[in-house]
């Protein structure tokens, strides 16, 4: 591995001023499960590695009636082992408990999974359908960005050089709502998604109709994709296999996958249809509805 300096700022102010002042390449270290491996292969060679785990704001996990705030450095395992969070946001748990094995889950952070911006990242579609906002800060101020706009391409994101992803804000779940994440991998775990999908639905009080929906798919384009058209197609429609099928078809159309060693275009298109269907089924069930 190349040589680098290592810093552990104790406050968000100290961290932001380091980012503001640094002229050579910097990488932020939270879980390190991507960064350390990337540095070892020489894929990235920062001059400074800033360990963000001492910063309080990045370690918060706050559930209230206003929703959920997840600090960017909070690990997947911390999230899925919190029973209250697990009950309130099961779709997040679907994804967080599937990343790597248990050793990776103990380190890999929610923010890191987002910032790494892998097209196949499992958390991102789940965060998208849960309407998560990325809370971004630099030494001059802060802004919020919907997660669906955060990734700009494979491995690239919307953060400027001096900006920091502080946390993710998830609104509270509406009445009669439910969400679910599904992915497909050849092995049952320890694998990268060939395709993945998340769905969130809000049902009418009687559970018979879709009030609204959100559908996101991953590993089938340069970034995870929010499929607005599929969601719109469900609005006001009866909760039925036919409705689900139409949405899944639209999602399939929206997918623009590539052939690579993990799967083919045709397979991924098929998987999008299957996974969106299964994610919707799960979401409907969690919303108290039935097909």
């Amino acid at each position, binding site marked *: 591995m190349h040589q680098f300096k290592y810093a552990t700022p104790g406050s968000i102010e100290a961290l932001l001023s380091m980012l503001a002042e640094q002229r050579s390449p910097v990488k932020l270290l939270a879980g390190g499960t991507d960064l350390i491996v990337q540095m070892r*292969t020489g894929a990235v060679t920062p001059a400074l590695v800033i360990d963000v785990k001492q910063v309080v704001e990045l370690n918060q996990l706050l559930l209230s009636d206003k929703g959920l705030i997840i600090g960017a450095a909070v690990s997947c395992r911390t999230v899925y082992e919190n029973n209250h969070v697990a009950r309130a946001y099961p779709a997040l748990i679907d994804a967080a408990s599937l990343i790597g094995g248990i050793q990776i889950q103990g380190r890999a952070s929610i923010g890191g999974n987002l910032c790494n911006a892998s097209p196949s990242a499992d958390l991102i579609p789940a965060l998208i359908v849960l309407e998560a906002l990325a809370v971004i800060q630099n030494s001059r101020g802060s802004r919020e960005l919907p997660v669906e706009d955060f990734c700009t391409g494979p491995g690239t994101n919307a953060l400027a050089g001096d900006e920091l992803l502080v946390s993710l804000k998830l609104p509270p779940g509406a009445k009669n709502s439910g969400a679910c994440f599904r992915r497909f991998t050849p092995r049952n775990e320890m694998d990268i998604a060939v395709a993945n999908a998340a769905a969130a639905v809000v049902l009418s009080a009687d559970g018979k109709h879709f009030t609204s929906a959100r559908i996101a798919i991953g590993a089938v384009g340069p970034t995870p994709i929010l499929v607005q058209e599929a969601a719109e197609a469900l609005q006001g429609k009866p909760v039925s296999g036919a409705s689900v099928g139409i949405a899944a078809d639209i999602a399939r159309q929206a997918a623009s996958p590539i052939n690579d060693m993990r799967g083919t275009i045709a397979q991924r298109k098929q998987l999008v249809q299957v996974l969106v269907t299964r994610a919707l089924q799960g979401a409907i069930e969690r919303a108290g509805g039935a097909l």
Partner: protein
Amino acid sequence: MSEMVHVKTTINGAAVDFLCEPRQSLLEVLRDVLYLTGTKEGCNDGNCGSCTVTLDGVLVNACCVLGVEVAGKAVTTIEGMAKNGNLHPLQVAFLEETGLQCGICTPGFLVSSRALLERHPAPSEAQIRHWLAGNLCRCTGYDRIILAVQKASKRMLAGT
């Protein structure tokens, strides 16, 4: 030579301090600086679990942690599993059930299994398979590892 960092930490309950470069992983520090060679390298990229240790009680791959990160934290390794020469029930069960062949993955499996039993003292087979999915074994086909964990769990619950 590059800048060395002085790190104070706790390993297997004992205060330890060492010097390392920021680029050295915890795995490298354990093995090449502290000569705690029980933690094994299988892939060095987080995909086999052979270097599993706990960091403040959480299972991690030591290859995906920097040595400098463990300052002020508590690390446990396979070397800390037997107490005063008495084997942990899992170690006994792995021996009795032939839960190992070549033995290279064994320390990682034991550390993961201990963390599992601390969290879920009576795990189901599915739970055991889930907790051990991050540890690769190429010799055993896993059957006898799972039997060993089940046996240790029963003994620990019975207090024997």
